[in-house]
């Protein structure tokens, strides 16, 4: 399988007092087409910083990042915005749905950002919501939805513009076990397909089983890579 995302020697420094603090140390990672990779590890190990860099939100201090052959590290702010708009689908831990928009309208936002009219984009988003079993809730506001339903709207929003790269930050953190499992199942079913890479940041071992590979991070480094079912099972048991 070809790599959608490739990171080589990625390091990231943040300002701290008079100097800087390095939170990522020479990360080498590739995410392949059609796979779901889980980034796991304790809080503060650099998972979120790494997906922010891979998604073109933060720029790396050192190293090279390519997404579908495009150099992501040296993008200007406007080019980075265009890259995210065209290439990346986002699923946030807190969903970040706009409270005044319906589920369909929320799911349609990436299309609107790309220039489509809201009503037409919402019609397309409705079809994606249907696929996620949310058709009956398409006209509801976020406050009328449960946590699991909101997460499914967030998944629809990440998929609606069919991006080749999807990043998810702790998608099950705000959900109970059953809802979290269901959200991961739907994410796996709807998002993972040839030509697309999905990276999920999580520290919820109950969802490790959905992964094709798992990269475990500690102190800004990838310390273990589980690349087959047996390795993933071992990591889950630990």
């Amino acid at each position, binding site marked *: 399988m070809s790599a959608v995302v490739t990171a080589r020697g990625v390091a990231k420094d943040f300002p701290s007092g008079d100097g800087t603090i390095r939170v990522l140390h020479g990360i080498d990672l590739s995410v392949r087409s059609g796979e779901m990779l889980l980034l796991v590890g304790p809080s503060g190990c650099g998972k*979120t*910083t790494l*997906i*922010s860099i891979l*998604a073109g*939100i*933060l720029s790396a201090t050192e190293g090279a990042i390519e997404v579908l052959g495009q150099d992501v590290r040296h993008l200007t*702010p*406007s080019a980075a*915005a*265009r*890259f*995210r*708009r*065209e290439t*990346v689908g*986002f699923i*946030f*831990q*807190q969903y*970040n749905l*706009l*409270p*005044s*928009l319906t589920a369909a*309208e929320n799911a349609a*936002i*990436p299309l*609107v*950002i*790309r220039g489509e009219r*809201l009503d037409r984009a919402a019609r397309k988003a409705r079809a994606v919501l249907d696929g996620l079993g949310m058709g009956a809730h398409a006209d509801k506001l976020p406050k009328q939805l449960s946590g699991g339903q909101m997460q499914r709207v967030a998944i629809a929003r990440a998929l609606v513009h069919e991006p080749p790269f999807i990043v998810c*930050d702790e998608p099950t953190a705000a959900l109970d076990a059953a809802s979290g499992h269901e959200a991961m199942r739907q994410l796996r079913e709807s998002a993972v397909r040839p030509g697309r890479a999905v990276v999920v940041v999580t520290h919820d071992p109950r969802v490790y089983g959905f992964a094709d590979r798992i990269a475990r991070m500690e102190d800004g480094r990838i310390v273990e890579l589980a690349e087959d079912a047996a390795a993933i099972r071992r990591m889950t048991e630990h």
Partner: protein
Amino acid sequence: MIRIALRMLTGDTAKYVGLIGGVAFAVMLMAQQASIFVGLMLRTAAQVIDVVDADLWVMDPRVIYVEEIEPLPESALWRVRGVAGVDWATPFFKGLTVARAPDGRLQQVFVLGVDDASLAGGPPVMLQGSVEDLRRPGAIVIDRVGALFIWPGEEPAPGKMLEMADRRATVVGIAEASAPFTTFPVIYTRYSEALRFAPPPRKPLSYILVRAQAGEDIDALAERITAETGLLALRWQDFAWRTIRYYLTRTGIPINFGITVALGFIVGAAVVGQTFMIFVLENLRQFGALKAMGVSNGTLLRMVLAQAGAVAAIGYGLGIGLAAVFFEVTGRTNVDLRGFFLPWWVAAIVAFAVVVIILVASVASIRKALTLDPAVVFK
């Protein structure tokens, strides 16, 4: 995205109403305070403004406002009439006296004496009776609100009697006059009657009203009158401004009231600015999510400006409407507040102020959104 921005604005009804209400309140405060100040200043020149048939007011050069009269000799009238370009020049008396109602009630009144022959300088708007009735002996026309002061609870009407300087005066008409600064009733009568009703100084002629001949350049005529007679000739607008300037520069009114107006603007600006800024800051996380999903800074700026424009337009419309309703209602129901109105240019200045305030608040708050690290959505 503009539609989404407007939906974000109206999504939370309570916040939206609070935002619009805050702007509307601030606009009303600014417009109302500024208009009352303007109305108060216009009252100082009410009797100048009400003389509609003269082009020029001629007076002693030492006169600095309409109440500070330096009487002119009768010969001044003839000298002015002799200036080329003068169509007519008439005497105008302005004095104060005490009127006694039949029930013994006393009331200080303005007495305005207009030319016996032409009645030039008479009441601007007659509500009852005719200006021509002033030709009858002892006839006076009184302003509507002044009549209410003298005969409270009675409908203003011709036929009522007054005594001024022990002489009987008969009301022959009711006029609408601009509210004077001191709110005394305004009584119009002929010049010769005025000298009997209001004890005159040695020289009784207060002002000379001049109408220019057709096609005459009024400013040139004013300069010619001044050059040939040594008297000061002013357009009514200039005399009104001279009077207003006196109150602005020589009394404490502008400072005291100006502070109130300034406070109105400061409080208004603070309410508008802070309310909008809080709204944007509360939505910062949503802006961050949009930014993470690829919304450019330019689009974010347009979104915030669209929200600001909507808030400003709706809030301004409501606030200015409330201010207009305030003046309409108080003008009808309270005679002390008549004559106060919302000048169009005050509305325009307030609109400009709201735009500036909203823009400053938008720029201050959007700066946070533009410099926002989109990674905030992962935190």
